[in-house]
């Protein structure tokens, strides 16, 4: 699996997810203890594995690569759409769809064919718990689900508590370089950075993933620049901007430009906890450096 493909798929879907309204809630299909599951997003595959029912997945998208075992699952489509005929052939008793991330026409067609579709719709960081709860009910693993949900909230709460009152770190999040696109304070990715005491320099209330001008970054003097990358490899595609030319920016001057695994940052999976921990550690390092700088 090409890591660039993977990340970009998630990016596109994150952007797509944004276009749906918050209010729509889709009912759960009448399924208990599903045994043949088709999961149409990388994050639902991760969540099903976390619930201990990963071996029940019979089909998934070309981007689901975590945990490693997920790579062995049959692929039934991806970014360009799904092979509905193959889905019917696999006789699933549950399809975990991704509202906003999957093509609506594909999902409508599956429903028309009387396939049991659960449309998961996650918009905020903490809503990951809602999807775990729903998947717990649908796969008969409610107990495990409740434990995961409890740990998820507890981990995030403790991170939040330990970073309250700490010095705010202003940051720029480089989602895309051509054109320059970032996350705004309203996006769910921003919630993770906020937990760690991060202060986004882009505060567009209307758009979650605004396109901005390079001058915006120059004028707002971010202390940190965060670039989502793939598995630590940077192949140049995602970092088209040459920050080194602009030492006027504090983040550049103090070498606080960080590449963080985009897969854990951009997926609605439990690994967002890991992502938040990494971000918090990063920001703590910056705080340390700024204290040392002042001392010197």
């Amino acid at each position: 699996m090409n890591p660039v493909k993977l990340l970009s798929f998630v990016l596109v879907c994150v952007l797509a997810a944004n276009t749906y309204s918050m209010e729509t809630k889709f009912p759960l299909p009448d399924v208990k203890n599903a045994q043949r599951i088709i999961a149409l997003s990388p994050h639902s595959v991760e969540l099903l594995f976390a619930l201990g029912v990963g071996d029940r997945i019979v089909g998934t998208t070309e981007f689901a690569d975590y945990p490693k075992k997920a790579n062995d699952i049959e692929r039934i489509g991806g970014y360009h759409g799904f092979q509905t005929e193959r889905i019917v052939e696999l006789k699933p008793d549950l399809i975990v769809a991704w509202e906003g991330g999957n093509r609506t026409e594909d999902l409508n067609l599956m429903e028309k064919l009387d396939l049991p579709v659960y449309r998961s719709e996650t918009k905020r960081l903490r809503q990951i718990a809602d999807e775990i709860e729903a998947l717990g009910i649908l796969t008969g693993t409610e107990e495990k689900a409740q434990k995961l949900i409890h740990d998820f909230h507890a981990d995030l709460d403790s991170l939040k508590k330990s970073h309250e009152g700490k010095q705010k770190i202003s940051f720029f999040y480089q989602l895309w370089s051509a054109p320059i696109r970032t996350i705004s304070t309203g996006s769910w990715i921003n919630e993770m950075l906020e937990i760690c005491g991060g202060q986004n320099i882009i505060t567009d209330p209307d758009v979650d993933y605004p396109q901005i001008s390079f001058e915006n970054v120059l004028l707002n003097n971010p202390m940190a620049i965060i670039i989502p990358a793939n598995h630590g490899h940077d192949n140049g595609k995602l970092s088209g901007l040459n920050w080194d030319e602009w030492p006027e920016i504090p983040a550049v001057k103090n070498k606080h430009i960080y590449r963080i695994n985009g897969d854990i940052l951009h997926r609605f999976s439990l690994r967002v906890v890991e992502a938040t921990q990494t971000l918090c550690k990063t920001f703590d390092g910056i705080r340390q450096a700024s204290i040392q700088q002042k001392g010197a």
Partner: protein
Amino acid sequence: MSNSLLKKWPLFLLIMLAVASPLFALVLGVANISLSDVLNIFCAQVSDSCEANRLKERIVLELRLPRIILAFLTGAGLALAGRVLQTVTRNPLADPYLFGISSGAMFGAVIVISLTGFSVATQGVFSNWAQLGLTGGAFIGSAFSVLLVISMAGRSVQIERMVLAGVATSFMFSAATSLVLYASDPQAASSLIFWTLGSFSRASWDTLAIPFVVLILCFILFSGFSRQLTALLAGDENARSLGVEVQKLRISMLLLTSLLTAILVANTGGIGFVGLMIPHIVRRLYVNYSRHLMWVTILFGGVFMVWVDVLSRSLIKGHELPIGVITAAFGSVFFLLVMRRKNWS
């Protein structure tokens, strides 16, 4: 004397616009920089008596100025290419798009981007190589389409056949480009689409040299051949009787325009309609100045494109609209209005 100078006021107006428009464009942007700031920054370059804010200076000189110059060069170059093509083929519809030059260049560039994985925004150490590869790919694509069009034109180079072959070539390359886009991964496709719609945001001093030199070179050559080109307008037979080597002239002019277009496409992406529209408007507005048409076309195209770039940056707050979308949208409406009012024949 003063009377004849007065009569030339449309020329002076254009020159004044060509000076004032870039100045105005320099003031416009996200960062708050006033005209006096800009003048101060320029003053600081030549004299020690002026002092400019360092960050503002860098924004104006390294971000905005190269961008405006690239916009000017692009507008000027595409308009010039369109004018020469219209003359060479005696076809009022001719422009770099009609002969597949643009779509050939676009296909070449898109192939280079998707094969090498070079980000279209790459700057720094690799920028020169990436830019060279991109330009090379664009030129090979456009030269290939020109040769294809010429080879289809028949031994006597019939213009009708050339136009038809150009349309077919154009569609062929567009289809190939679409296929590459479809096969690319979403992130690359998104960047590629943004690129094919045209943008000046990648402009930097390093990348301005080639377009500048090629534009000047083409201008000198086109001007040198302006008598022969005018003779072509009277028809191939007449031109031949005046001693013009029609075939050679036509083919070399086509290759030159494809070089010019390829360089511009490689630097800015796909920007349509300018090559078609500007020469027509210039011919209408400056009907009495046929001797000056070549440089008037260049200035007009440049000024036009600087304003298109201003619109692209300011129409929607925080967003940059693709240049090609604005030239096509505004250009076509403006063109229709001018045609209506002037009772085009």
